[in-house]
């Protein structure tokens, strides 16, 4: 029984992490249709931003302030990753709209370059980030069920990011423009929307969210030049399974994969669990090729 409760929580936690790493991609791939293989590296940039922010706090701030570095790091990660994403869009991606194969190869190349740059700047070995003390430990429900604060924090963070994204896309003028451009670029352009600016901004936002994911993942995982490669497959899986183009699909995809992964892993092993999840996804996509939430409003153009 305790195992069941713990595993339901773990499933939720895995889902929230998957959702966090996939949300940025849901924008760049899902909305903009750019197969962004450098998404993992944007996560890496977020992680290193956290590392640098922590270093700055240790060096220049009073010790008692140290625990607040993580909040600052979340913002810094978003801004740095968004800036790099915006640059990437300006220099490269905008020449590649509508050319999936080219954007795939180009962003893959960019990803490798970013990895090597990180290796030059920070060195090949992993770096360590000390998590803030208020996230250490866990909520003890019974003696054997301990819900780590870090995992709870990530669940809350995902909910916040998701809400912010929803409000931005569906409740603001910029969001409406974004949707207009993604649905029908030519028509939106005719109506006076600067599609170039919207593209740049959208890609920057997607990248920034990847940065936030990178920051949050420093709590649980390694921080090194190649961490992006661990997350990129999962991120694509979530977006493809969820259905390209709708946020709610990404949420459903993340929940589905997270829950099933935990379930399978409980009864088999980590390797077999992953294989079973992939098999299930492949089978599902045979049945519903467009994912869980199939809605493509782009079909108009």
């Amino acid at each position, binding site marked *: 029984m305790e195992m069941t409760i713990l595993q339901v929580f773990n499933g939720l936690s895995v889902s929230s992490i998957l959702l966090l790493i996939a949300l940025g991609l849901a924008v760049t791939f899902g909305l903009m249709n750019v*197969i962004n293989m450098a998404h993992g590296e944007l996560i890496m940039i977020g992680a290193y931003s956290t590392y640098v922010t922590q270093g700055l706090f240790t060096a220049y701030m009073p010790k008692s302030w140290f625990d607040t570095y993580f909040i600052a790091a979340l913002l810094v990660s978003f801004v740095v990753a968004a800036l790099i994403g915006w640059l990437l869009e300006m220099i490269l991606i905008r020449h590649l709209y509508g050319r999936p194969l080219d954007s795939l190869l180009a962003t*893959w190349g960019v990803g490798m370059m970013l990895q090597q740059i990180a290796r030059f700047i920070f060195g090949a070995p992993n770096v360590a980030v000390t998590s803030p003390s208020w996230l250490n430990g866990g909520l003890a429900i019974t003696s054997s069920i301990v819900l780590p604060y870090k995992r709870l924090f990530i669940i809350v963070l995902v909910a916040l990011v998701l809400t912010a994204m929803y409000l931005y896309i569906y409740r603001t003028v910029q969001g409406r423009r974004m949707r207009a451009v993604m649905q029908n670029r030519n028509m939106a352009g005719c109506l006076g929307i600067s599609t170039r600016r919207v593209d740049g901004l959208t890609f920057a936002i997607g990248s920034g969210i990847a940065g936030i994911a990178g920051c949050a993942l420093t709590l*649980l995982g*390694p921080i090194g030049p*190649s961490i992006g490669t661990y997350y990129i*497959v999962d991120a*694509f899986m979530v977006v*493809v399974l969820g259905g390209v183009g709708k946020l709610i699909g990404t949420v459903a995809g993340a929940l589905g994969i997270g829950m099933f992964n935990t379930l399978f892993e409980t009864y088999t092993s*980590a390797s077999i*669990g992953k294989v079973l999840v992939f098999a299930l996804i492949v089978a599902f996509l045979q049945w519903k090729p467009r994912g869980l939430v199939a809605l493509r409003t782009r079909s108009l153009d």
Partner: protein
Amino acid sequence: MKKQSVIVKGWASFVLCAILMSGCVTEKEAAPNAGADNGSAPIEAKGDSIKVGILHSLSGTMAISEVSVKDAEMLAIEEINAAGGVLGKQIEPVIEDGASDWPTFAEKAGKLLQQDKVAAVFGGWTSASRKAMLPVFEQNNGLLFYPVQYEGLESSPNIFYTGATTNQQIVPSVSWLLENRGSKMFLLGSDYVFPRTANKIIKAQLTAEGGELAGEEYTPLGHTDFSTIIAKIKEAKPDIVYNTLNGDSNVAFFKQLKDAGITSKDMTTLSVSVAEEEIRGIGADILEGHLAAWNYYQSTDTPENKAFVDKYKAKYGADRVTADPIEAGYTAVYLWKAAVEKAGSTEVAKVKEAAKGIEFAAPEGKVTIDGDNQHIYKTVRIGEVQADGQFKELWNSGEPVKPDPYLKTYDWAKGLSGE
């Protein structure tokens, strides 16, 4: 635009498959694509220098570990050159990048042997890279010095193994754990050749020495979510977790173990792939109190080690640390030098013959090349991680242990080496 989204999705799934497959391929033993043409090229030192190859991953996922070994080997070469070289000649290193890709290792090994005609190569880290290079060295009659602890059950006439084999690391550490920390053991490892072979040996040993297997789990390389595995460990309530995870998974495992409220006081973990360098990337606060088994620590107390650590830090920076494979790489260069000087030649057959029984006062203490299997005698050490990221030695074998890669001297291991 229906069509486009289908195309996009098609490509996305193609890429996913490609990534997944590349993940699989890297774990297989890659066939060498650098074929050897016609047997052995006579390797003679020319002019005033002797060429040696350095072949490690300087890019890709393994760069995290291998760059430091390359640095240690370069340090040894520099020292030897400053002291007059080998046979009066300077050593000229030829550095190649294996790029964390096993076929590349085979290809570069072929290039070093055939084109550069190096006298010896120092290189490799993963078992997969060694197994890819092995046929190249055998066909070209080259000489490889491999510096990392590995799963044993191998003894190539063209390889010198300066890292530990199983009876110099895993087997004694399991015995020590059973005597000192309890009998119920949970085996956790990455899903590839080293952990699976190591755990096969451990299971046979547990049966023979009265231990109990509490569970066995493998994760894909690069696995970063250990919530389920930690839940399973909690339920199995083992005394000991024997950890053969490799690479970045260790970071995720230990961070999440601590968050789940399990500390080194509640449960012993012993790792065989976590050394000083990895501690820096995980954080000493997270690892404090956990155990590791190696043959060398930066804190190992020998005069040779003090000098080695000082020189390494002077050359590469005070923040750098030394660790077991780094020391084994450094020692390998000196062992080769000693063998060449004894043979009076760099010819492979003569060097191999001369190498038998060569002794060297390494940073880890005295090491001796075993004439039968070209491994080296090494002292086994179990250490506990301290708050400063260094190890405190809890136990050592007292004297260098004779290497036994096929575990022939252990009754319970019969049948393991059959493959």
